[in-house]
């Protein structure tokens, strides 16, 4: 019982460990990150998603996803053995104000750290995946379950989509 209590306290401490973040908005942190060395950047706007959801090229299975998305940004590192490649996990956490976001979970091993965040509002949901090699920011009316199911959707419909 005592051990369980200690573990519980540890979990709560780690869950609140990210209370201290920076002051920048997510968008401005992405601007900061994309200016770093060895970074690739990808940004899709709501207008583009609207177009993707309306085009005949899009398979039915994916159309619903496109309809529910209003924004997507991703930064990725490449050439990680170059000393100039930044630790984007650290940079993101230090600079971004994540007020209003709830941390869903964090997993950390000797080589990998990953965190998931979510913010819900009437206007839509925001999801963040933060890891040392990539940061993904998704906005829209999509829910977490649909994002999780996407892997299965891809396995079924991916082949029809040339993926």
């Amino acid at each position: 019982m005592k051990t369980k209590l200690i573990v519980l306290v540890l979990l709560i401490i780690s869950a609140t460990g990210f209370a201290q973040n920076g002051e920048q908005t997510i968008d401005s942190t992405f601007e900061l990150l994309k200016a770093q060395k060895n970074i690739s950047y990808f940004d899709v706007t709501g207008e583009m998603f609207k177009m993707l959801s309306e085009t005949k090229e899009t398979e039915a299975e994916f159309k619903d996803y496109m309809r529910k998305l209003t924004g997507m940004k991703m930064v990725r590192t490449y050439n990680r053995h170059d000393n100039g490649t930044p630790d984007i996990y650290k940079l993101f956490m230090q600079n971004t104000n994540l007020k209003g976001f709830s941390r869903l979970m964090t997993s950390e091993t000797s080589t990998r750290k990953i965190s998931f965040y979510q913010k819900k509002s009437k206007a839509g949901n925001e999801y963040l995946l933060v890891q040392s090699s990539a940061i993904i920011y998704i906005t829209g009316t999509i829910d977490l379950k649909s994002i999780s199911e996407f892997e299965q959707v891809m396995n079924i419909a991916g082949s029809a989509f040339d993926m």
Partner: protein
Amino acid sequence: MTDSDFEKQILQYKKKLYRFALSILKQKEDAQDAVQEVVLRMWKKRELLNSDENFESYCMNSIKNYALDLLRKKRNFQNYKEFTSTGNIAPEEFENKDLIERMQLFLKQLPVQQRMTIELKDFQGYEYEEVSAILEISVNAARVNVSRGRKRLYEKFKEEISNG
């Protein structure tokens, strides 16, 4: 990663991937199918893969995830939470087998987590840090699982020796 980079890199891990899949799934056909399926899935997202990241570790990790999923789907585990329980091998399987073949059978009988760590550490020669990265467990957990597996094999070995 370009198509040719992907093919070149994945080909050199064929043996390792197959052996690792076999250690989890036990059946040759399943292991072969798992490797082909994982290669396909990785090929689909090859443009997102960084060739300079630890590609080998990523491939092995993908095999682990896919093979464990397959095991769950096939309901090889009566109950997911009974991961650590061991099944019994039918006595006829031991007939006409020498000590080494019997030890191989005992190895197959280990719980999947112990089988995976022993396969990676003892049979494929990975360091604990690498095993930890592939299986996404801590270094300590990797060492504990190797230790438990070895201890179980040692006990079985002693039984075999004392039974003559």
